[in-house]
């Protein structure tokens, strides 16, 4: 029987909502991971195990792993370190997880760096090539810290991968992490004077188009963008009907390379909530040339909602289910690709991460 799981990360633990294939009836479990702050959750494709990334203010960073659908968990941070010594900055927390086509698990951490695991997150090794990039001394934090928050592996080539770092930008490796190149041409950095630099862009989230590894869509601090050459150059889409250039999450359709969703927010100086306090998710069906506003079921007055970079996800059913969580603890779901929305639960802690999983 097909079931859908929504994996939710918050500063007070992970939660899981179990739903039916129709995505009408849901039940919630949690808090999981002993109430640890959880920034990201994924499912390991080869095993179905849930991995959760986080860090405790007391007990440090760790990746949690559950092999029974979230009932019991283990955790590890073995090897998740930049080394020993007085000058070494401790890793504060883990912000992102992804799996490559060869089963390698990747973790992005704060302060920004990348780690890999060949054993499902039990032990880790540092991807030193990124940390050793010549621009590393110039890297500066965004409002959320100096964080590696997005990992997009190539779907078939384990040597290729893109990562996003705030406020540094997108990098790509084509040799399995040994060397990296900035991929920020065409992306504005309105918060510094003069022409856009090679790095220093405030990428918020990016995703790959289904079946088109060279097509990437990006939500940046300074607009929405599309690349059709693997990130080498980017085209600004923010004049195409969205009400704000600013926003955090971006989610790509699992089968249609032309479709993705964003949630524009007012500028940071204006509060970072949905424009005019009227809630909406914006969808494009033509690669970002035009966007449609989806608001059926969402509050249209006095809705001072904000959605963080990892807090929107889609499932793989047809039609695709889309879910987003707010900083004020509401979890909204659409079972029809964003046409209409229902509130699943309204009293969670601040929602940092959402992932949707279909299990048969």
């Amino acid at each position, binding site marked *: 029987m097909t079931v859908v799981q929504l994996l939710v990360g918050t500063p007070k633990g992970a939660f899981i909502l179990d739903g039916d294939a129709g995505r009408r009836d849901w039940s919630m479990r949690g808090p999981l991971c*002993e109430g640890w702050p959880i920034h990201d959750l994924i499912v390991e494709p080869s095993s179905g195990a849930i991995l959760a990334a986080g860090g*405790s*203010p*007391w*007990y*440090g960073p*760790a990746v949690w792993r559950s092999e029974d659908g979230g009932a019991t968990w283990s*955790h*590890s*941070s*073995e090897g998740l*370190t*930049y*080394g*020993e*010594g*007085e000058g*070494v*900055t*401790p*890793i504060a927390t883990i912000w992102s997880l992804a799996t490559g086509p060869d089963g390698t698990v990747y973790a992005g951490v704060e302060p920004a760096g990348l780690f890999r695991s060949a054993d499902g997150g039990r032990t880790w090794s540092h991807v030193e090539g990124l940390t050793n990039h010549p621009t590393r001394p110039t890297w500066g934090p965004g409002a959320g810290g100096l964080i590696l928050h997005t990992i997009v592996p190539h779907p078939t080539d384990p040597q290729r991968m893109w990562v996003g770092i705030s406020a540094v930008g997108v990098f790509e490796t084509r040799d399995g992490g040994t060397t990296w190149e900035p991929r920020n041409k065409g992306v504005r950095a309105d918060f510094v004077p003069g022409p856009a630099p090679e790095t220093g862009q405030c990428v918020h989230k990016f995703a790959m188009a289904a079946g088109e590894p060279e097509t990437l869509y990006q939500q940046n601090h300074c607009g929405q963008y599309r690349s059709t050459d693997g990130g080498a150059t980017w085209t600004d889409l923010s004049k195409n009907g969205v009400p704000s250039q600013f926003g955090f999450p971006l989610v790509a359709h699992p089968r249609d390379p032309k479709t993705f969703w964003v949630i524009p927010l007012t500028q940071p100086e204006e509060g970072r909530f949905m424009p005019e306090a009227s809630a909406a998710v914006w969808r494009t069906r033509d690669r970002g040339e035009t966007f449609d506003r989806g608001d059926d079921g969402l509050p249209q007055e006095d809705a001072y909602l904000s959605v963080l970079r990892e807090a929107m996800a889609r499932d793989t059913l047809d039609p695709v289910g889309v879910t987003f969580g707010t900083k004020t603890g509401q979890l909204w779901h659409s079972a029809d690709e964003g046409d209409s929305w229902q509130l699943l639960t309204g009293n969670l802690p601040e929602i940092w991460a959402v992932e949707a999983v279909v299990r048969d």
Partner: protein
Amino acid sequence: MATVLLPRSLLALFPGVERRHEVEGATVDQVLSALDARAPGMRDRLVEEGPRLRPHINVFVDGQPADLTTQVEPASTVHVIPAVSGG
């Protein structure tokens, strides 16, 4: 052997591990390594890069605030206590 008392929130991360331990060790550092042998990964939860105690982990030896270098006697009692933090 020194007596070590661990906090409940740490025990929750290591199912089956007891709160009270009798371990060998001449320093807090050695005591925590001895604990790690019984509960692999426990040292990582208490010690960060440096190495030093994590900022919100307090250790007391015979009631006195301690760090990794503090001496531990065979008759000592070592308390590991999470600091006041969180929100």
